[in-house]
């Protein structure tokens, strides 16, 4: 289960970040922000070789001592980042993928809301609920 989930706009500013409340929130912000380096690099590398035929799931972006950071980029260049505790070895790649897929579906629902203005921070309750379901339950 994730310890931090973030949605990043095409222009690389955060639309949504939630992390486990027990830990230093700022640290996760930095983790997500720095992971964008790798996301950008991966997007640009794909853009050169395959054109539009790319997979949305970027896989493990980089491992730190404590966390694993996974990335996913939609076709409109909105990025999803999921941070998982390194000690959590039970999570397989497939499960991460399905988390991203779920996140993407929910994000699509948010975008379909005519009252949501693309580029604004996401405040949807439904989206929040989906994210909560994927986060590590603490206390």
């Amino acid at each position: 289960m994730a310890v931090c989930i973030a949605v990043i706009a095409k222009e690389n500013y955060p639309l949504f970040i939630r992390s486990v409340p027990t830990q230093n929130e700022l640290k996760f912000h930095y983790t997500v922000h720095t992971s964008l380096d790798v996301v950008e690099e991966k997007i640009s590398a794909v853009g050169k070789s395959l054109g539009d035929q790319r997979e949305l799931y970027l896989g493990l972006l980089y491992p730190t001592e404590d966390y694993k950071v996974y990335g996913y980029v939609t076709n409109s260049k909105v990025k999803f980042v999921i941070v998982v505790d390194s000690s959590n070895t039970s999570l397989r790649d497939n499960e991460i993928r399905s988390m991203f897929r779920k996140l993407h579906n929910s994000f699509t629902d948010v975008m379909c809301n005519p009252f949501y203005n693309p580029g604004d921070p996401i405040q949807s309750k439904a989206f929040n609920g989906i994210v909560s379901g994927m986060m590590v339950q603490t206390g």
Partner: protein
Amino acid sequence: MAGTQWELPPELCCRPLAFVALTGLDVVFNAVHRAIWDAFCANRRADRVPISFKVLPGDHEYPKCRSKRTSYEWYIPKGILKTGWMNKHLNLVPALVVLFYELDWDDPQWKEKQSECATKVEIVRTSLQGRNTKVAVVLIQKKTPLPPGEDLVASERASALCNACDLSGKSLFVLPHTDHLVGYIIRLENAFYEHAQTYYYTEIRRVKSHKEFLNKTTHQLLFVRHQFKIAFFSELKQDTQNALKYYKTAYSLVHELRVHETNMLEIKTMAGFINYKICRLCFQHNTPLDAIAQFRKHIDLCKKKIGCAELAFEHSAWMSKQFQSFGELFDEAIKLGLTAIQTQNPGFYYQQGACYSQDRKQLAQQLCQIGASFPAQVPVETQSGGLDFYGQRLWRQGHQSIDPPDADKEKSGILALQMKERDVPHSELIIALLSNAVAQFKKYKCPRMKSHLMVQMGEEYYHAKDYIKALKLLDYVMCDYRTERWWGLLTAILNTALCCAYLMASVKDYIIYSMELLGRASTLKEEQKSRIQKNLFRVLMNEVPEAEPECDPSSVSAARSLWTDRTALAGSNELTIEVQDYVPFIQCKAKFQSPSFHVDQSIQLQVFLRADCPHPVSFNKLAVSFSNQEYNQWCAAKSQGPDSLTLLPGKTKCCNFSFVAKTEDVGKKVEITGIELVLGSDSGRCVFLSWRGAGGDTASAQEALQASRSSRRWWRGLGARQELDWDSLTVQHSTMIISRIPKISVHLSHQPPVLKNEMYCICFTVQSQEAAVAQDIRLTAGLKPGQDANLGLATHVTLDGSSVCDDGAPALLTDVPLGDLKPGEKLERCVFVRCASTGPRVFLFQVAYSIDTEVEGRQIVCRCHKDEMVTIETVVPFEVSVKFVSTKFEPLEQVAVDIPFLLMTDLVSLSPWPLMLSSSSLQLLTLSSSTTQLQSQLQHVVIQTGECASECFCLRCPSGTNSANTVATGQYLVSWRRQASGPDGPLIQTTVSLPHVILESVPVYITADLPSFGRVRESFPVRYHIENRTALVQEVEIAVEPSDAFMFSGLKQVRLRILPGTQQQMLYNYYPLMAGYQTLPQLNVCLPRCPDSNSLALRRFLPQHIFVKPQGRQLDDTSIAAA
């Protein structure tokens, strides 16, 4: 440096080289020896054998070899690895001792020298008692040796020397001191290297042989020690593959050791050493993935082995060192050609190292609070020099039991270590690691990671109280976070920066950071903002602000006194802050009401201000500056009373300004170059917030974009809202000053299209609707500039329509003065245009004038102009077609010389208006007219659209013209005008070039004289003239073919000759038999001498038919009577 306890020992980090000691060389006083030594140590490149040489005196004492134990039964090891062991084998115990001795084979005192040499060898041997170190002798000789086997004396003496010194033949070398010294030296050292390898091989065997005596219960430490030693000897032997294998075994053995708190440090230290060796060798073998995997395994195994809780910082320090040294190994490998990638580069290891150093610092702060005095009785100088074994405590060396032997000693030892840790400059270590990491991430395209690390560096400098460096770093990265709009992170950085600014008492920085923390980009809570704003007001009042709650209490008092000094300073209390690049708490947007203003209108400017802070803000002054500074005076607001200019939180304030543009700025842009807002007062501090251009800040562009997205969808429909939507306010930073709207009408009347080359008349009427006199009216008329350049050459405009203008007339008449025009008056003029080419043209009629007006009580003279544009097509007035026909009106392809023919012209009018043709004439070149024409047949003919006017001219090509050639015939000139232009209108002459004709000459020309008609049964004479036009006598055969309609008399068939230039006549009488249009009897003429001309060619000159009238009746009496 205090970090040395955790530094890896240099003998571990170096590449082990076989150690060979050279004795008997006097490198100080003996030049030959010096040269030999230099040859050994200079230029040791990679292609030389890996040996480290040392010069030692002949009687050097080598480390004593302890007696080898024969049984390990009662032996309990005191530690894993002795601290001196690696150094001993690298630098103290040689694999080979080489004795240099000057001795030639033919030395006269051979015997004495031989025994002296033997003695020297013996001394060395004694010193190496118990070691397997080899001894070799090198004889330095002055003479070049003979090839082996030839010098019998040499071989005999060599074996004698070997016997005397108890050397094998392989250990005796000869070094002739000649030109090829380096070559000999290289051969020598290769031989040394072989000896050294044998030595290390035997050492490995020796260590291996201990294994059988060990048991697993008491000798666990020895298993590790022996594996390590074998691996180290393998490295000395340069057998890195086996070394790696043994190190790996050693590594797994280390982790099999029983771990308890007392030996934890020793185990970790050794594990770290072995891990270092493994990673180093993996990189050396170019298997970086193995190195990384080993390191990961190492970290995973050791991460949790914290050991003594009171000394937890030691674990962090050790972990930090592990990461750092791996990072250095990685970096070194990259320098030697390894390629790293963005997600796997040394930066991550330095970063993690820094992270553990930060942990260490925190732990040290927690654990080392005790203010107890230094317990002097416990030795804590844990430099490896003081220790027997790596990783042991100084106060209980060699102790391997689970519990510490002396609890009190243990306690004071821990305390001493904590005391020592307190003095460690942690921040320095962290910053060094971070800056290493920054350099790496910069290299591997991780700008955000780099920024993050720089923030950490900044924070560390802040903790280290180096505020200037801290601010420099934080300032540098702040703008990255600002442009990427990560407000949460920006706020955190700003907070640290604000603390720095406070502690430094840097007024300007303090104000800047406060402003941004109060702004909308800050994620601070309302009460924090409130506190910051109050502090900001204090600074503006030139008072001392309260300390930030995060600040270190110990530094606060120093800061406070700094602030007091600062406030006491007179003078420098004015500050200008460029806020454009921040997200300040006061937002500003200026907008001209319209993108353009007429010069007779007043320019409306609105400046919107908005405060995002929790408390109201008063400002002193608002000033707008423009590209033309003369307007600045009109757009400034100054505070009248104490609260006249106050911004309420979250409310938008709008300041309206209006001013009158200068007439000389017509056609120019007026731009806002800056806006300045003054906070504070002269009594306290004045802060000038200045925006470049028309306001806005780093965040406002994106906000405007978002607002435009949303307004496009929803807000437009909701209609007027009470509060102005700040985000959707757009900045209008410039306005165009345009001329006053003219109040005159310009009307054009003309009859399009233009006929090519005519003087086309365009009449325009100017009617004034002005209330005052329009002065100095000027007309610009003609071809609108900016069209095809060729049009300009083919268009001519003039005011004089009485005659056709020449090509010198311009395409555009400019500034034709037309005088003044009183209110309500009218003015009419005509302009004539001549277009020399067809196609559409745009004509411009501009009427400009000046008028006095009044704007907001100011009298100004405005220049205005009215433009009228018209597109007119130009067409050709008529088309002329020309054809040549024979006198029989048969079309001619060729014109025969000196034979009359006809030229027919057809002029078809294409003009929609009737044309009056004034005259027409021919200008002939080669041809001549057969008739003397007096008057044009077309004179004063008026033709309507589509009508045709034709003319016919009889022409002849004079004889003597060069025949069988095409010749120009001349031109057809037509003078014409529009019928509507009246008799005074100028005539236009249009010239049509006549087509070329092909000339031919005929040898014989035949004409016939015959009446215009015949009558039945009345004969008529026909005379044929046959003319010879050649210079030769022509023979002509003439035959007349019979015809049903005629009887005839005359020569039916004749053959005759015609002299050159003369003609022959043939007379016939034709007697018509039938009435009607009858074919004449055909005259067949043929020229036997001229076969190329046939009768048909000649026949075309002859008439073919004649009209025969019926027989007339005489009006006689009988017929009348019958009637």
